[in-house]
């Protein structure tokens, strides 16, 4: 199998870029390349990850300025051609601002910045990001955000559900979708969604922070494995 190249975009204020690079590099045959926001060259990447952090200090709205970074022109084109793009936390916010995903993320309903372990369930295991999960899995993956409260107008929400674009939901430890298990007030307990064509995923939880035993959970690894097995199969 030839080497897989994954691009990790670095915006000013990204702070999970190196965690993501580390997680990406922990798989055999996968090489991360760091892509500076001012560049235009995706350096042959076969998938792009927009990492977590506070791009541009979250000025104006989380992700709103990063969305206009020079590299985003190429990332948007890359996504529109059907190549995989993954946005984690602030990366999810950037994807929503850029229009690659639908909806918006507002302040957590309890006003708090939340930094804790959550349980989520993959509710659609047929996307290129989730084939290595089972829908019965209950995953322990951390969140760390102040603006993760997923919102979309009713017609968008309905369309997301109808086309099975909701990929992860916050659940309790038994995998039940309950309001108590919803950390931030997201509509329909949404933790992650894909676009209609299934090649762009955004999620608030951090799979890269759940990819090593020492970190207390390995539940993020199958997400990367799913993506790599998809790329390898092309």
């Amino acid at each position: 199998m030839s080497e897989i190249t994954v691009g990790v975009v670095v915006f000013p204020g990204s702070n999970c870029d190196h965690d993501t690079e580390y997680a990406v590099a922990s798989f055999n045959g996968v090489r991360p390349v760091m892509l500076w926001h001012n560049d235009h060259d995706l350096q042959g990447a076969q998938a792009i990850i927009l990492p977590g952090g506070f791009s541009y200090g979250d000025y104006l709205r989380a992700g709103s300025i990063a969305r206009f970074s020079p590299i985003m022109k190429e990332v948007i084109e890359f996504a529109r051609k059907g190549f995989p793009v993954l946005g984690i936390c602030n990366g999810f916010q950037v994807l929503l601002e850029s229009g690659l995903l639908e909806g918006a993320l507002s302040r957590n309903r309890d006003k708090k910045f939340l930094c804790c372990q959550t349980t989520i369930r993959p509710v659609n295991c047929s996307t290129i990001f989730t084939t290595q999960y089972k829908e019965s899995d209950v995953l322990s993956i951390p969140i760390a955000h102040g603006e993760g409260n997923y919102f979309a107008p009713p017609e968008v929400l309905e369309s997301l559900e109808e086309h099975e674009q909701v990929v992860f939901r916050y659940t309790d430890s038994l995998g039940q979708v309950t309001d108590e298990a919803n950390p931030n007030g997201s509509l329909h307990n949404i933790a992650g969604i894909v676009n209609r064509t299934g090649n762009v995923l955004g999620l608030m939880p951090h799979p890269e922070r759940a990819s090593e035993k020492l970190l207390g959970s390995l539940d993020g690894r199958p997400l990367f494995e799913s993506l790599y097995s998809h790329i390898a199969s092309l």
Partner: protein
Amino acid sequence: MPYTAKIKVTLRQSILDVQGKAVEHALKNLGYHTVASARIGKYIEVTINEEELVEAERICNDISQKLLSNPVMENYSFDLEKVN
């Protein structure tokens, strides 16, 4: 003569404004029991080097929709004043 655009961005009514809620509670705690609600938005001043009002308005709408507000959850309004 340039224009100063005074742009206000507010959360749509259907969106829970947690900052506004916190301020509302604080005002009530201060004894202002007639305060019924508080909502927080953003105020942005932009100077636009345009001679024509119509063109300045077009730019205001453009930048408000493209960057300054997120139409999914925010509304915007603006006033334009000629700078002397």
